[in-house]
């Protein structure tokens, strides 16, 4: 058994208030440059909604990710290798800039140079404003826009998006740093790679040739073409920070403190098999089986043999990501049916259910009420299932029941009543485990949210004796993807 480590993230959607702080700080850190004005390595989209870029989840149209062919073999949805080479000259599945949106700025000069008059001068936009990365934020635009949500369309029930009965939540998204990344597989130059040490997926801009196959290959549309340099760019999982043990910018600045970062161990030789499972509803379990238990002595032994250090193993044992996926069973992957084995996981939100219970005049903290609602509210559950479980409502229900039980259980404790052990028992947990889960989700201290081991580094003398990072040729010699403003 080979063992590799993967840096992974969990986002607790109940806590996202849709403030976009993560997107803005990410943009400040990585994409406030020419050529990537339109790119949001982190974006926050309202669900139901069209997403960013518009309708990216409609794989019939965009052909991202993997699919099984007739013989049950895993193939890129956009076709085989030869087909891709033959379509190099014009990629049939590439989104247009307007599918993302055309960025604009304002003529601020006018504020100063406008002639004196009765009206206040305005800063007019430099281009028509017709769409943005967030045009349908918080259901703005109403049912006319939301009805084009590809996830809604896959649901069997005709969902009427009347405002009185609408449910809504926010979905922050970054690159999934997949175990089976279709962007990597689609790149003819082999310029995108997965780091063996931490699984972060990066673009080598020295070998990127602008074939732009990764952009269409990624089903989450999280690779962007810099239209000035012609090279692909993507979320880096803030690796220069991660290597120093610091969380990503989006996680650190998150107002809701809802992001968890830790490592998981996996066996790269099991990836293909897991991604090829025929039944879509079995994909989550298959994906989980690729991940290894860092407390299992045979895994520890294999990990050490594969060159993973004790420090990293310890981090794997303390990983909040591992706990949220396995110990508490709360975290689910986004769109497992794309078969890329995504490594940013989500705790689906209970709030649409709680709101529905409250709106009908019942007690939204009561376990029985919530359980009944989880079982009967088909629309939000169906929607969440289309996002996180390839449409299987059972795992979503299990998670929401646990979250509902936690609410009820903790209310008794907060109010100084006797804790009711039957509540955790009804979702297969002990009171103690449930209390730990509560601490991780609600108290969410930074040291519990982020367990990030330092990257292996050379002895410091060597690291600091590289001399000036800007050498004679004038090029910056940091081990980062090089970007060039042309």
């Amino acid at each position, binding site marked *: 058994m080979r063992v590799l480590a993967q840096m992974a993230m969990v986002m607790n959607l109940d806590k996202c208030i849709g403030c976009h702080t993560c997107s803005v700080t990410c943009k400040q850190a990585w994409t406030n440059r020419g050529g990537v004005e339109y790119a949001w390595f982190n974006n926050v989209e309202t669900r139901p909604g069209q997403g960013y870029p518009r309708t990216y989840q409609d794989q019939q149209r965009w052909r991202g990710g993997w699919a099984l062919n007739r013989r049950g073999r895993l193939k890129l949805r956009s076709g085989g*290798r*030869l087909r*891709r*080479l033959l379509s190099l*000259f*014009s*990629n*049939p599945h*590439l*989104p*247009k*800039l307007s599918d993302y949106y055309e960025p604009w700025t304002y003529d601020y000069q006018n504020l100063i140079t406008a002639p004196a008059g009765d009206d206040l001068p305005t800063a007019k936009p430099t281009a028509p404003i017709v769409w943005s990365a967030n045009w349908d934020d918080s259901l703005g635009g109403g049912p006319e826009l939301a009805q084009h949500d590809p996830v809604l369309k896959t649901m069997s029930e005709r969902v009427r998006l009347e405002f009185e009965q609408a449910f809504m939540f926010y979905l922050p998204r970054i690159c999934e740093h997949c175990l*089976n*990344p279709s962007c*990597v*597989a689609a*790149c*003819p*130059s*082999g310029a*995108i*790679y*997965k*780091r*063996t*040490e*931490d699984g972060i997926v*990066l673009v*080598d*801009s*020295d*070998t*990127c*040739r*602008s*074939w*732009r196959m990764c952009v269409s290959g990624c089903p989450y549309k999280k690779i962007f*073409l810099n*239209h*000035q*340099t*012609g*090279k692909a760019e993507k979320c880096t999982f803030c690796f220069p920070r991660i290597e120093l043990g610091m969380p990503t910018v989006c996680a650190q600045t998150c107002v809701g403190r809802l992001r968890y970062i830790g490592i998981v161990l996996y066996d*790269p030789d099991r*990836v293909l098999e897991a991604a090829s499972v025929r039944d879509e509803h079995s994909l989550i379990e298959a994906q989980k089986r690729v991940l290894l238990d860092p407390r299992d002595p045979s895994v520890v032994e294999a990990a050490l043999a594969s060159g993973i250090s004790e420090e990293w193993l310890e981090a794997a044992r303390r990983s909040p990501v591992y706990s949220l996926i396995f110990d508490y069973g709360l975290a689910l992957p986004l769109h497992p049916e794309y078969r890329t084995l995504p490594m940013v996981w989500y705790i689906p939100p209970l709030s649409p259910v709680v709101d529905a219970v409250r709106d009908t005049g019942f007690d939204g903290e009561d376990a029985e009420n919530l359980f009944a609602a989880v079982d009967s509210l088909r629309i939000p559950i169906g929607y969440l299932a289309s996002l996180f479980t390839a449409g299987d409502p059972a795992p979503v229900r299990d998670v929401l029941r646990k979250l509902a039980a936690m609410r009820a259980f903790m209310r008794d404790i907060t109010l100084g009543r006797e804790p009711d052990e039957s509540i955790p028992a009804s979702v297969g947990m002990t009171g103690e485990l449930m209390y730990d889960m509560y601490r991780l989700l609600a108290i969410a201290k930074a040291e519990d949210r982020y367990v990030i081991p330092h*990257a292996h580094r050379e002895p410091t003398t060597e690291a600091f004796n590289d001399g000036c990072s800007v050498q004679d*040729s004038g090029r910056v*010699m*940091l*081990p*980062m993807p*090089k*970007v*060039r403003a*042309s």
Partner: protein
Amino acid sequence: MRLAVWGVLPYLALASFVIGLAWRYRYDKAGWTARSSQLHERRLLALGSPLFHYGILLTAGGHAMGLLIPAGWTRAVGLSDGLYRVVAFGVGGMAGVMTVTGLAILVYRRLTVRAVGRASLASDLVMYVLLGTTILMGLAITLTGNGHDYRATVAPWFRSIFVLQPSVDAIAQAPFGFQLHALVAWALIAAWPYTRLVHAFSLPLGYLTRPYIVYRSREASRARAMD
């Protein structure tokens, strides 16, 4: 004068080509790209780009045959000159028309689609002028060459350049159109490394055989970045 144009210029162009490519590959990997503009416009590109590229690749193959393989060899394998000419005219003409049509669409797109125009560099302009002239001249002489046997004039001279004994007299006998085409082509070759045309050397054939998922260690990517 003759010697300067047909005996020296080609070497200057070749030097620029080789040194330019080596220099760019060594010091400007970050700039070595096809610089796709498909994000800005896709309909015209979907039409023009494949037409142009398939045309130009066919044309390149035709040139390799016509210029590098001596007439004696094709005769030796039993291909009569008449048949050769028909094939060259047919396939060459078709490739030429494809190339020119595709090129026209691409140039029209560069000129009329505002976003594409604004994404163009000065090197794109130079490239399109040289490429366009070469291709148009080439198509013109293919269609109106009146049966001039360039395999007795241009081709021997072209081959002679590479054995370092340029036979200036051979090319001097070619009609003016052929001479001009060859001359502009050398200019294109000289300019090649400094334009986006470098992407033509990056055809990623390795893709057909490599494993889908690429792993690379942090140390390896660091070493590459420092290189």
